[in-house]
């Protein structure tokens, strides 16, 4: 598949937006004149006074335009080691299953008796996640990792409210490199946020945790490893201290890929955890599309879970949705969540098997450490927490700070130039940036050694180019449909709009301003 870095060229059609492509009188379909008074079928108050301002085009022109757009948008299909996202192949067979009418045409308000196959999949996948985590119950309502973290803050609130401690326990502890959704959802749910800083070995110290814990502590929300890739070996001790202080411990398993099948959150003492099915479990992701944050917890917290819960009646073998849960926090999303993603994740887990899941975790760690050898051999690349000597897990944060010092070109310019070689610009870093010019590649178990080599070769080549032809790198990309996005425009309300009508209005105002 791979080889030496080669320049590619993406499609560029350079067409105006569809609203400007109409020609008066053109039609997509010419309908026969309706018999009788069609207008009378629409109540008077709902009738348009004038026709909508749509561009007048033929069906062929419309189809051609959108095909061109799709080539520009989807034309990039190269090697993407897009870190913190755990890029996985989405097997076609799962996609085909998801399109079957038994899945695609279900209605969430159907009677349970007509949803038995779907409920069985939900229940069986719940059992698989229980096996991987040691938790007692999972729900799939949350439509993403942040939504699952939010679910945890809701459950935490419900749990302490029931104990009469919510007033007192109003703090949630997290770390500066935990995914930002943890402090964000804690704040959304009304908790104060206490952040622990990373220390020399790449994770916060246990002394910092002890200083943060008190009878105000409601919960710890933490990733392990976080995006630095350092596994905190004291995690069981951490959880013990949180429990002793009376708080709950939540394991954000966004970075589960390196430890799948190797550790169980419950065995480490955690009360709850979250898995991202659209990432770790082979569901499609990207474009902000459908996602699932599977949230699981101990039996002690289960009464507070969002409802309904899918349960199996062992006597009859039938499945049903249990809505009768008086302590439930209610809903974090409508119905049972994005079940077509649950179904794909179930298909992935069944295809992998327990041993396959463990092997994938090991391959992910191995691939990352192979990649690290290659990356650290490239002049200009630095590694986060250079003092931390332990092996990194499934990904590592690096920085192009040394290259920037030397050439003035940083990770944005380098990433732009990498796309000229068919390599997606790398994921940089969550906020705040604690590494200069950060980037975070993640090989996972998907990408071959050749792919990883190509990725590293391209980075090395672009770093060389930054020294030999800095202007070319600075003005990259050269082979993409859109060269560079004006990063100021999205911050200037006069220059963007969310509707065509608003854009016309703003454009007119700008033109008038320019004329004056």
């Amino acid at each position: 598949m791979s080889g030496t870095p080669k320049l590619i060229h993406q499609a560029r059609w350079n067409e105006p937006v569809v609203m400007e492509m109409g020609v008066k009188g053109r039609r997509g379909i010419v309908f026969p004149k309706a018999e009788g008074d069609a207008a009378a079928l629409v109540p008077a108050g709902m009738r348009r006074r004038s026709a909508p301002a749509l561009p007048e085009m033929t069906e062929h022109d419309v189809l051609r335009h959108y095909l061109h757009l799709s080539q520009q948008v989807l034309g990039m299909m190269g090697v993407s080691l897009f870190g913190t996202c755990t890029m996985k192949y989405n097997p076609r067979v799962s996609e085909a299953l998801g399109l079957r009418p038994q899945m695609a045409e279900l209605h969430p308000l159907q009677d349970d008796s007509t949803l038995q196959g779907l409920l069985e999949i939900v229940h069986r996948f719940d059992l698989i996640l229980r096996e991987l985590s040691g938790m007692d119950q999972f729900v799939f309502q949350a439509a993403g990792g942040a939504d699952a973290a939010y679910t945890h803050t809701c459950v935490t609130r419900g749990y302490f409210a029931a104990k009469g401690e919510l007033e007192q326990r109003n703090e949630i502890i997290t770390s500066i490199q935990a995914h930002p959704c943890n402090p964000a959802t804690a704040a959304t749910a009304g908790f104060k946020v206490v952040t622990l800083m990373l220390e020399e070995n790449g994770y916060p110290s246990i002394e910092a945790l002890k200083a943060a814990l008190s009878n105000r502590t409601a919960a710890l929300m933490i990733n392990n490893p976080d995006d630095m890739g350092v596994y905190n070996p004291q995690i069981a001790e951490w959880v013990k201290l949180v429990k002793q202080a009376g708080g709950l411990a939540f394991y954000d398993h966004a970075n589960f890929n390196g430890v799948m099948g190797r550790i169980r959150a419950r065995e480490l003492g955690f009360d709850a955890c979250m898995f991202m099915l659209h990432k770790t479990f082979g569901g499609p992701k990207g474009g902000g599309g459908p996602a699932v944050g599977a949230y699981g917890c101990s039996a002690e917290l289960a009464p507070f879970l969002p409802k309904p819960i899918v349960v199996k009646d062992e006597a009859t073998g039938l499945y049903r949705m249990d809505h009768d849960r008086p302590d439930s926090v209610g809903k974090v999303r409508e119905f049972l969540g994005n079940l077509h993603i649950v179904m794909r994740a179930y298909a992935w887990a069944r295809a992998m098997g327990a041993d396959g899941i463990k092997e994938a975790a090991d391959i992910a760690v191995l691939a990352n450490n192979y990649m690290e050898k290659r990356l650290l051999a490239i002049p200009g690349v630095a590694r986060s927490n250079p003092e931390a000597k332990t092996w990194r897990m499934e990904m590592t944060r690096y920085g192009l700070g040394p290259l920037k010092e030397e050439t003035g070109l940083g990770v944005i310019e380098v990433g732009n130039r990498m796309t000229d070689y068919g390599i997606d610009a790398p994921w940089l870093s969550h906020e705040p940036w604690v590494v200069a010019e950060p980037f975070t590649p993640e090989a996972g178990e998907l990408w071959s050694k050749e792919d990883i080599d190509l990725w590293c070769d391209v980075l090395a080549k672009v770093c060389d180019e930054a020294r030999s032809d800095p202007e070319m790198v600075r003005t990259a990309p050269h082979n993409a449909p859109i060269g560079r996005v004006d990063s100021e425009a999205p911050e200037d309300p006069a220059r963007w709009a969310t509707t065509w009508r608003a854009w016309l209005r703003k454009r007119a105002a700008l033109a008038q301003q320019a004329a004056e």
Partner: protein
Amino acid sequence: MRRLGVIVNPIAGMGGRVGLKGTDGPEVLARARALGAEPVSGLRAARALAELRGVAVLAAPGAMGAEPCAAAGLACAVLDGVTPDAQGTREAARAMEAAGVALILFAGGDGTARDVAGVVGTRIPVLGIPTGVKMQSAVFATSPAAAGRLAARVMAGEARFREAEVMDLDEEALRAGRVSPRLHGVALVPEERALMQAGKAGAAVPDEAALDALARRIAGEMQRGRLYVLGCGTTMRRIKRAIGFEGTLMGVDVALDGRLLAADVSEAQLLRLTEQAPATAILGVTGGQGFLLGRGNQQLSAAVLRRIGRENLVVVAGAMKLAALDPACLHVDTGDATMDAELSGYIAVRTAPDRSAMIKVAA
């Protein structure tokens, strides 16, 4: 036509290689020369200036600007009658402000930064090419080339500006082995436009907005009859403004019942005031070094702190500022080992309303 002002302190950095910590004052400079120190500032300035193309430049004369410009192949208009010393630096800055330059790019160290920023304040932006021995101030780029590139972006109208603290060390104290930076003022400096990436990450809340919100929160939380001892620096100024007074940027002020009770107080005043009422001390974090006490706020002595009590210490700093500390650790140096030991450990620094960061404090 936008013009760039260029001022070079030709003797900056000469003390460094001969171990003199700096060249503030003519006697020290003479000693540096006697020890064989050679000028380095002009060469480093030229390296920065080489990054600029097609920019209209107004330079100080000779080694103070025109010569490094020529060495970098940059044509420039030259100021008249400026002497190559601190006084000349200040005169040049004043003349450049009057000439309406878009940016003063200066080469030197903290002393030069003080001279330039002391004249122009935050009225026009300044940027330092690091050529000195001491560079505590946040007005310097990381390298000469980086300074040149950033200046080029300013001249192209592609930069944002922020306020930065101008610090300087007491050289005498430094030669005696003590590091003692003091805050000398505030300058307006360019920064690289936040390089945002599309997609997954939302924009970070900048420290400024979070700190202003926190300042309002803190002002609102203040109890009647309680003294609030407010430290120095720009973060503390936000709180002073939120309470409703301007206060002293570089001094410690005391507030009571929503008004300024005493400005720029001494240790003796603090001891007298804290005798009469319970007090809370609110402190910022100094620059890149992460000092909490003992740098520029020596008025808050061990005796004063003992009176106030550790539990009544409130520390405020922006999350980004804390994240930039490497290692993540704050320092105290009250001159009293017992007090320093009491203050050591971990402290919750307030970073925004309802947000804090637990960070190590070391003596």
